[in-house]
């Protein structure tokens, strides 16, 4: 079956087989879509029982997915775009980079990891744009958090738009910087969810329209709409 049209920022709900302790599906951002090969890629970090079992899948195994779910990052028609990711949160940025390239926009990537051991796919990202790297311990790229990277400390900021996905604290820090510098910023939230299609109401986040569902009205939100203290 051919893939449906998928937009960057959308996610799947994956069923984890053969893992008795895993009951609910696991949400993952769509990492890459190749319509020609009819493949969809996920980037999964082994964190708990569910992701460990997913990591044991072998080529040819099947995986039950509900997709594509959620909204997507806004696609500008022009301008400089910075894609910021941290840890496993880098997942949707590859697809976003490819998508922007097809709209004739070459974004910059700023990706942060704890240490050099966790850094991967830098060559892949550089196909779609310039890549800046930071690690918490300075073992690769600039030392510190992504918000301490020279991309952010150099004034004025060279971007009209930031798209960000990663740990909550990182997204808050990036959103705060974006606000200070007057740059539009979208974040992809990872709230705990059960269903993924808008009915359990577990994943809500407060916005200017009240409590909205991360799975349906999100996962991507303009940070100005969120009730974040920045």
């Amino acid at each position, binding site marked *: 079956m051919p893939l449906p049209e998928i937009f960057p920022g959308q996610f799947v709900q994956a069923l984890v087989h053969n893992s008795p302790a895993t*009951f609910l599906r696991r949400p993952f951002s769509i990492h890459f879509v190749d319509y020609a090969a009819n493949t969809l890629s996920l980037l999964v970090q082994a964190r708990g029982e569910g992701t460990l079992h997913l990591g044991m899948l072998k080529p040819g195994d099947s995986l039950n997915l*509900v997709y594509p779910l959620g909204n997507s990052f806004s696609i500008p028609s022009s301008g400089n775009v910075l894609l910021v990711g941290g840890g496993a949160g880098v997942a949707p940025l590859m697809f976003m980079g490819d998508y922007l390239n097809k709209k004739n926009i070459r974004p910059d990537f700023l990706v942060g990891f704890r240490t050099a051991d966790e850094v991967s796919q830098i060559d892949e990202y550089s196909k779609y744009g310039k890549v800046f790297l930071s690690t918490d311990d300075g073992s690769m790229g600039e030392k510190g958090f992504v918000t301490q990277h020279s991309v952010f400390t150099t004034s004025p900021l060279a971007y009209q738009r930031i798209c960000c996905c990663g740990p909550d604290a990182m997204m808050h820090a990036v959103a705060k910087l974006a606000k200070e510098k007057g740059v539009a910023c979208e974040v992809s939230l990872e709230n705990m969810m059960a269903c993924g299609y808008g009915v359990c109401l577990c994943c809500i986040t407060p916005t200017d329209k009240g409590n909205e569902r991360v799975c349906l009205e999100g996962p991507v939100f303009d940070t100005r709409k969120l009730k974040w203290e920045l």
Partner: protein
Amino acid sequence: MSDLSINIAGIDFKNPVSTASGCFGYGEEFKDFYDLGLLGGIFVKAVTGSNRDGNKTPRMAETASGMLNSVGLQNKGVDHFCKHIYPRLKNFDTQIIVNVSGSTIEEYVEVASRINELEGIPAIELNISCPNVKEGGMAFGVVPSTATEVTRAVRDVYKKVLMVKLSPNVTSITEMAKAVVDGGADVLTLINTLLGMAINAETQKPVIATTTGGLSGPAIKPVALRMVWQVYNAVKIPIVGLGGIMNATDAIEFMLAGASVIQVGTANFIDPMVAPKIVEGINEYLDRHNIAAARDIIGALKKP
């Protein structure tokens, strides 16, 4: 093809499979997955007197063979439901039943009387069993005299079929069932979630923001089956059964225990297509056992 139709309290369900309140939104969310006309009924998300934002997050925790939730009846209130949601639902080719909640008897009565005016809604399901709100909810469903009182107050204003959803968090489920029958209930729904909690040992904190929440999923199925069976043997009115139903076999077990109609709840989160699969599975079971009609297995449990 066996006869799957079920009539309870005068309402025709084309089959015994319906979806549980709070696990199926307003049904519209599932239109992309299948034709809602395949369902016997849809019990829509709880409606209260006015807008409720619900509880803080995290609102859920995964547990062994189940999950805890503490949503806290988030909804936009009965006025919004009648004006904006009902018009979109009224033409669905399935029975639409509204779950009615409140913090006070007056609120239950207000919501019930508003829903009473909606022609396309044949019944309400009075929710006196939500464990996740500070006032009302389960507080009405754990003391028999209070349960009788709220049921009677709603009975006075609600002219169609009155279903009452019972809490399992009681010493005697049959005593509660009899109490709401005394109040004028036409049908009993059981069970709502079991009060539970989850702790993160690393952070030494509760996993969900309200500390406790409602447990659902296969973990609670044996408790639910036992309660349906006890109530079936204690009262004469029909039962809508739920609690951890994941497949057709589970559904059939509930019907054997005494449920006329079943609800699929948490399973909708695991497989959005599960409800029509259960309809198929019940049909297959009846054929295999040469049973002419689904209604023939209601309460047909044999002695051990």
